[in-house]
């Protein structure tokens, strides 16, 4: 990988800016263009930039968990968001439940789950190609 001072110095800022943008896109998605799919991809881009600058081993340290573990927890979260419907009113799985009068409901954790799966999926694919894993 190119050893550039600017790249290395800016890496963590770009990562956090990218993550902030991705969460913004994730949350606005219900009303404006955006959502979990796109948010997850943007978040992945932030990490990919970080990995290009600092090496994937460093990125994995920032991630703390393996990308697959992030993806797995996302899948669990998305599935779990469908359960209240089953328990509350015996409706089919993934009929979202809303708090009366507020746009807050089980669709939000579902979208976060999608976000995490996409993020984990993209990083699990890309990180192994971005340099020596054991830096």
């Amino acid at each position, binding site marked *: *990988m190119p050893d550039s001072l600017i790249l290395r110095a800016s890496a963590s800022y770009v990562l956090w800016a990218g993550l902030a943008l991705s969460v913004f896109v994730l949350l606005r*998605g*219900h*009303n*404006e*263009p*955006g*959502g*979990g*799919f*796109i948010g997850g*991809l*943007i978040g*992945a*881009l932030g990490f*990919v930039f970080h990995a*290009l600058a600092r090496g994937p081993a460093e990125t994995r340290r920032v991630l703390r968990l393996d*990308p*697959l573990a992030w*993806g*797995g927890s*996302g*899948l669990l979260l*998305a*599935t779990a968001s*469908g359960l209240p419907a089953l328990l509350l009113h015996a409706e089919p*799985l*993934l009929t*979202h439940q*809303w708090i009366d009068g507020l*746009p807050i*409901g089980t*669709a939000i954790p*579902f*979208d976060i*789950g*999608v976000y995490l*799966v*996409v993020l*984990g*999926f*993209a990083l*699990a*694919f*890309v990180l*192994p*190609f*971005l*340099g020596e*894993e054991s830096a």
Partner: protein
Amino acid sequence: MVALIAIPLLTLACVPLVAWAVRRRPWTAPWLAVLPAALFLLVLTLPDGAAFRLAWIPSLGVELSFRLDGLSRLFALLITGIGAGVFLYAASYLSGHALLHRFLATLTLFMAAMLGAVLADDLVLLFVFWELTSLASFLLIGFDAHRSEARSAAQQGLMVTVAGGLAMLAGVLLLGRAAGSFSISEILAQGGGLADHPLAPWIVVLIAAGCFAKSAQWPLHFWLPNAMAAPTPVSAYLHSATMVKLGVYLLARLNPPFQDMALWQGLLVGAGAATMLAGAVLALRERDLKRKLAWSTVVALGTLVTLIGIEDPLAATAAVVFLLVHALYKASLFLIAGIVDKKAGTRDAMQLRGLRRLMPLTTAAALLAGLSMAGAPGFIGSLAKDLLFTVHVGLPGLLPSVALVVNAAMVVVAGVVATRPFLGAPMETEKAVQDPSMAMLAAPLVLGALGLLLGMAPQLVDHTIIEPAAAAILGRPTGISLGEKQGGALVLAMSLGALALGALVFLGWQRLQPVLAGQRWLDAYGPDAGYGRGMRALAAGAVALTRRVQGGSLRRYLAASLVLVFGGAGLLLAARGGLALPAPGLWATPAQLALAAVIAAGALAACRIRALFGQVMAAGLVGFGVGILFLTLGAADLAFTQFTVEILAIVLLVAVLARLPFHALDARRPGERRRDAALALGVGAVGTAILLAVLSVPFEPAIQDWMGQAAVPEAKGRNVVNVVIVDFRALDTLGEIAVLLIAALSAAVLLRRAGKPA
């Protein structure tokens, strides 16, 4: 009758309990025999016709229904009764074995499956339990998994019975379709009309094939003796009361509607007679006690199948009596063979001599069982033999003589197995031989004594067990009482003739056996050798096919996939006349046309440029062009996604290109390049045609309109695309992200392996 469903299901629930208890407290092992014993008493007390139904898969008409009638009661009694003896015996036989808990748990599973199969009143339910017996017996036969002989025998048994099970499943589904119900009692209630159904021949052949595989009928008989690799209690159980009798059970169960069909009769009598003869010859040339008994089981199964195939009240009664007789003596003799093997250190009938003084009780049990097997007067075995000959006397062709010869052979086997090890001058053994503990002797003694008791007093079971079971096979009452003496002088002559002929051959068996064993062609061309050749050919064929199909060239895989998918789609489109142009209103604006030109230029450039980085850039042009095109169509979310994916793809490609050494950039010959170009153009043309055809279909706006209107009130969101993804079609999305994660998992495994040094 809740007790009825509790029999198989509670036994099933006991499986982990058994494993846990025996593992923690090995002293509980012998006490497990209480479970089958209690079930035995329960089955004995339940009233005839007891039934239990519960909806299971109502949309397919499949029920969780159980029913107890004469036939299933007889089988359930054998399974639990002999099961109790086998459990008791096994606890001693394998006492101290590190995996005793696993063995007994698997045995419990097997018993539960057998009970479920014989009590099920639904064909699909019966099939489920049927396959469960195959799986459980696979585990039991392969219990000594460190021996390759046990492993291959377990695999062979599984292959044969499960292949038969597939045929049976097809037969069951056809039968359910023809009868309009999977309920066995409803099918039986329809009577003989089913035989005239156009599907009847298929049903008969498929179900018979499944039953023949399970019940080891010629030419599928070979797996049974190989299954002797199992521990002896398993052999005893599988052969006497369970596994192999299940095929007989189903044939008997489904006999009433088909019994007048010539095909049914021909199949059963033909296969049964061939099995009898093959089993008799193979039994005579065997000198290993267990394998010898196994071949005699093949003979017994052939006899039973033949009897079911004969439409005659007497044949049905004979089948039931013989089934009972065989279960009693076969379980007893197998258990005795296990005792002899364990104490004297060999199962070779040529070496075993004179054990009678050393193990008097074992000798007594062996004599009781052997005399019943030979059909000696006074034992229930002679009753079965008389019935058998009475049925066969009236039959045409060679069948009476086949019955005579085969029965004589059984007398020889009974003599060799039950008397030869015990009579004569004492043999030399390594350790002191003596009778085993009562836990191991109980079952052989009781079963042998039962053979004598029932022979003396058949009225004990005549109207309670035998007649109801025979009536179930026949589909109407038999009107036969065991008390009456069957047959005339001819039958008596045949009985005595079989005994005399058998005794004569027995005396000369020591000289006859080497001659028969010397017939090597029986091994070289038998079905067992054919099975081995078939399996080797299958493996070799798979290797050759894999080499051919999985050549390792990515370009080839891609070409094959594209040709198949797009070629197939194109042919389908052309054949169905789907080629069409959309209405002119949908044509593009000038800006979109310009974008399309940019995309096309990018695609062309990607093909023409030789430098890899240039190719990546050109491909990027295509991706971003498509993204902008989405924007002009108002699909902001789609464009957004397209851009992010495109960036990720380019980063990934560049990173890969920087890491991997690509020396030969493009090694294709001009001919190959032309072929690839033609393929690419073809794929593009077919794709375009498909899209045009899709667009030419009038658009149905109802769903779109509903989604647009419902998005805010129902899902609290103004972005309809996102609402569709996370709410309206959330279940689809859940499936998609699950697929994504599975793909990532597979990729991680592959990449990790590729990263490792070879």
